[in-house]
């Protein structure tokens, strides 16, 4: 069963990555190109001509490289989702497979996309100083770890309070705890702002929306795709095919 959940998590992750790539290519690449054009115009105005071609051409970066990077990320998180699902399914109240997948992916989307976006939002190329990339990368991952710890604490709070307070009140208490911990983290961690005034705000906004959309597509596809795949795995059915014929064949 663990094997089946791991395999299906990676497969659904691969599909989620393909969907996210289509979005990232169509919606994300235009602001990336615009940002690079701004950077090159600024460099040309300053008299710095960068004549050396990049090791990997921009055409490859914006197609094959984009696809490869997103597929690696989505497949890895999809497989890990399968294992987290195997750990928590049947252990968080009476939640069934689809609901369990939806809860896990919603929490992951908040911890990995929404919380970092509110403190260290993604920047397009041309924004950022090489002097601070080390500490910015470090704080970015620290915030994600804090968010995951806060989400686990909130989940345990909901579980422990549900029998006494009822599920609705327990969920409200858990969410309040999560938001409170994230606010504390926001105030405690250092601010990083690399956006210099002449950079066009519309490009920044378009880019950040594209970033949010890429993450949203990955986690939505995982939530519904893996929820479906896991429900069938637990019922002993193959990933694809009609349900009524499914009992005759062996699962993946």
């Amino acid at each position: 069963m663990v094997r089946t959940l791991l395999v299906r998590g990676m497969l659904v992750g691969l599909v989620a990555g393909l969907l996210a790539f289509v979005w990232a290519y169509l919606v994300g690449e235009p602001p990336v190109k615009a940002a690079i054009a701004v950077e090159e115009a600024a460099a040309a105005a300053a008299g710095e001509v960068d004549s050396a071609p990049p090791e990997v051409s921009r055409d490859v970066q914006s197609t094959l490289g984009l696809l490869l990077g997103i597929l690696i990320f989505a497949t890895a998180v999809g497989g890990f989702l399968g294992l987290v699902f195997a750990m928590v399914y049947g252990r968080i109240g009476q939640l069934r497979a689809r609901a369990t997948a939806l809860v896990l992916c919603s929490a992951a989307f908040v911890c990995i996309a929404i919380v970092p976006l509110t403190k260290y939002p993604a920047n397009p190329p041309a924004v950022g100083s090489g002097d601070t990339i080390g500490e910015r990368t470090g704080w970015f991952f620290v915030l994600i770890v804090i968010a995951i710890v806060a989400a686990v604490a909130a989940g345990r709070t909901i579980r422990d309070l549900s029998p006494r307070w009822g599920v609705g009140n327990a969920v409200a208490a858990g969410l309040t705890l999560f938001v409170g911990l994230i606010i504390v983290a926001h105030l405690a961690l250092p601010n990083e702002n690399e956006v210099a005034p002449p950079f066009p705000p519309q490009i920044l906004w378009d880019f950040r929306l594209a970033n949010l959309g890429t993450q949203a597509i990955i986690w939505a596809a995982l939530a519904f795709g893996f929820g479906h795949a896991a429900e069938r795995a637990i019922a002993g059915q193959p990933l694809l095919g009609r349900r009524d014929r499914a009992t005759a064949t062996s699962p993946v």
Partner: protein
Amino acid sequence: MSTPTAIEPAAERAPIPVASPRELLPYWIFAGIVLMFAIYFVGAEEGATAVFSGSGVHELVHDARHLLGFPCH
């Protein structure tokens, strides 16, 4: 519905855990390490830190890193 489908009996049962934590622990450790490496190479290699010299890996996954929201440069 007169002919119950195969999913219904399973769906009526309360969910039961699929594996014990002891059985799952090695999978978690292994997948966690693989996940860390995958995220490292897509998200951070040759930005803040570098294993390979040069910038080929950085440039190849450059756009994915930006659009997934990792700090890049």
